[in-house]
């Protein structure tokens, strides 16, 4: 008797292989997996949204209207904004949808404003205030690198005020300092990006291994077939590229 868990494992393994098959080229199996994935995700989002609307607004408003209107009346505002979104289908009133979008963007910007000054400004500044002298030469060097790259990065991202060098004129000290910090900033960032890249790739490979570990446990045969097919798809993809 084949249970749902076995069918699920097979379907899961097949979907992984079908998605991987894109490495070779676009094909019908990838299209099946893609459309199933997108359709399921869209359906899931709609179900979640409707459930949330029901739990927060409709159900409380219908079951206990007195409590709702006294304590949670403000939920009506986002509901109205949500309805305004649908006016985009009207040629006459489509502009009303802009208000809903504007409120959404304003809320998002407000949320960003709440956290950015603490996390991205104050904490970063205090973390960069380190002694540039000391008895430990390694720590001192580390601190110099930290401070120079931070100042360089900040200089790189200054867009509207920058010293210019006139043709045939000796560059000013301000210009030299600016260019020096600018290059320290860009090269320092590149080194950081390299480290981040390597770190992320290691994490992704870890995910890949964990996916296969899942298959190994319930169905050894399914996992073996999936691994072989995936390897074949990757090899074919590499050969095709050459």
């Amino acid at each position, binding site marked *: 008797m084949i249970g749902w868990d076995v069918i699920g494992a097979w379907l899961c393994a097949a979907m992984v292989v079908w998605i991987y098959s894109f490495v070779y080229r676009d094909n019908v199996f990838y299209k099946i997996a893609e459309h199933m994935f997108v359709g399921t995700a869209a359906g899931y989002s709609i179900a979640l949204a409707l459930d949330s609307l029901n739990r927060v607004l409709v159900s409380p408003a219908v079951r206990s209207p007195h409590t709702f209107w006294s304590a949670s009346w403000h939920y009506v505002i986002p509901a109205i904004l949500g309805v305004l979104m649908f006016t985009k289908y009207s040629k006459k009133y489509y502009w009303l949808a802009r208000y809903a979008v504007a409120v959404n963007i304003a809320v998002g910007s407000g949320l960003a404003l709440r956290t950015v000054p603490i996390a991205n400004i104050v904490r970063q500044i205090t973390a960069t205030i380190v002694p540039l002298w000391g008895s430990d030469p390694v720590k001192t060097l580390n601190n110099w690198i930290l*401070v120079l790259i931070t100042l360089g990065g900040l200089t790189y*991202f200054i867009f509207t005020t920058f010293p210019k060098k006139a043709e045939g004129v000796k560059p000013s000290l301000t210009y030299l300092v600016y260019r020096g910090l600018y290059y320290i900033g860009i090269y320092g960032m590149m080194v950081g990006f390299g480290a981040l890249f390597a770190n992320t790739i290691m994490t992704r490979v870890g995910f890949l291994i964990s996916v296969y570990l899942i298959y190994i446990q319930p169905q050894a045969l399914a996992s073996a077939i999936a691994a072989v097919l995936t390897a074949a798809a990757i090899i074919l993809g590499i050969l095709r590229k050459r």
Partner: protein
Amino acid sequence: MKTFRSVLIVSLILLAIGVVSAVSWFLRVQLYTTRAPFSAFIMLVVLLAAGYIFMMEARGGKLFPVRKIRAFDAIEEAVARSVEMGRPVHMTFGFGTISSAMAPQFIAGLGVLSHIARLCGKYGAKLITTLGVPEAIATAEEIVREGYYSAGRPELYDTTYNVRYLTDQQFAYASAVQATIFRENVGANIVVGPFYAESLIFMEAGNMVNAFQIAGTARETQIPFFVLVADYSFIGEEIFAAGALASGDKETLASIRGQDVGKFLAIVLIIMGILALLLPGLKGFTFVDILNWVWKVG
């Protein structure tokens, strides 16, 4: 006179904050969180005030030139190249919800979309915008339509072709965008906004069809992928500058000057803090302690 008015307005705002603070203290209401340093609030006020003043100056006619951003200049080249090759231009600006802390990046992405739409109208290119943000569908449609109409090419606008909402679920969106890039054989793949693990998937799909790739995000963990794979990339805050440049609006460009004030402030505070380490602490109260000081009210 206008500067005086701006300073007056900022002073009034600061006065209002002071009054609210005093009232909250009197009523024993906790207005400020006791976990956040007060310096963060001061900086927020200073940056908002600086941005406001510069925007007012721009309204008065003052221009704030922004330094050259190569990735931004390359957008026109990418669109023109796509037209020469007879292939469409693809643009996407991320997935999720616009009412999150990623909103500024979505706005920057929409600004770049506006620029691309205008260029597509100018050169007669087909534009495909894939979306993962349901709230932005109406805005994206309007921006693309405006781009084609303002260039005098309304016949090129087709809502269902130009703007395609996929889903707000990360990897479903990623797989659909990847397939769109490949199946439509796009000539340019422009990706600007907040991106997560799907960034490399988009870049690889663009690489498979030999598309001209321009990408940018302010999410630090994804910048390396864009820098490595794209032909041109916006690094971090460059996407906000690009959004402002794309809008062509003097006031939006002036807001970039406001952001620069924040960076100058950070540089000055770092240098002051390091120099202050040379001085003996005031009963153990250092410069860093001042920045980390929390104002407890109520």
